[in-house]
């Protein structure tokens, strides 16, 4: 039962990315519909960056931790498919978002 706690990293890491995608797609619709006319571009940019960096960073950290724990706690027959089918897609999405945040911030 205790080992199953480590499985929680998968839905947690996935949740950060699902949230990130939902906010990126539906957040702007909410902002632009609620405030027709002139917008505070600075605020939109700042909040977008905070959310992107936080959620993508959380996704990367949680999936790294989850992958590490899966590899040391479970047998390879279970841990390798977990890494390939669960953590690799989460890494991909969260790293794309993280890279986007770096580009938008002119850091990279």
């Amino acid at each position: 039962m205790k080992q199953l706690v480590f499985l929680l990293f998968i839905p947690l890491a996935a949740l950060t990315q699902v949230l990130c995608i939902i906010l990126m797609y539906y957040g702007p619709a909410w902002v632009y519909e609620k405030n027709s006319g002139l917008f505070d571009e600075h605020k939109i940019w700042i909040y977008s960056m905070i959310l992107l960096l936080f959620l993508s960073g959380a996704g990367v950290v949680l999936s790294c931790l989850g992958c590490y724990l899966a590899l040391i706690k479970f047998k390879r027959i279970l841990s390798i498919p977990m890494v390939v089918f669960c953590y690799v897609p989460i890494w991909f999405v969260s790293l794309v978002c993280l890279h986007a945040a770096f580009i938008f911030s002119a850091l990279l």
Partner: protein
Amino acid sequence: MKARIAARVSIVIPLSIYVLIIIAVGDDLLLLSGITAGREERAAVAIRDNVNAFYKWGTLVFTYHYLDRHYATSRYFTQSDRNDCKEEFVAALTDALERHACVDLFLLAHTNNYINWVSPLPEPLRTKIRFVYNTGCHNESQGQEWLNLGADAYIGHPGVSQSPFFYFYLLRHWVRGNPLQSIIELGNERMIKKFYQLERISFKRYDADYAIRESIASLVGNSNLRIQDVTQ
């Protein structure tokens, strides 16, 4: 698995994925590049037309910080309908032209006629307009009109363009201080590469040659212009 190997695997895999993402994006990394000289001399005004909220947001988050960081004054407008923001845009442009030696315009909109908003401005102000980038479809032909109005250089696209690909490279290399001629060559080359990649990924359902014909950017005016140049 041993803890040390597990830790290495948990770091190496995401790092490898990140390297692949950087390669896929296909642009050089700026790596905290500094601000080019003469920031206080220049201003920028950008405008986005009324598209869906996700596109409005995407254009804003990409553009906003580059302009804010590399120009003494930068204003960004997002329209809610076709004539929205006209007064604010013209007022911001006039103010920027009065207070700075040169002003760049980023017209991030589908086929547009913002030139009609700018043409009534007094000539001494209009001649301070330096560089105009227009993402609009079929707006390549406005180039000579912008030059006649006083701009030093203009970049536009000939047809139903997929200009965001080009704009991504243009803005990043423009703020780095590269001359327009090299930016247009690099931007077009990398945009074409992306079109062919899309064609391969979509199993030829995406027509890269058509996209290239419609989107390839062209430049009129001063091809050696750089962001740090002060023109009159």
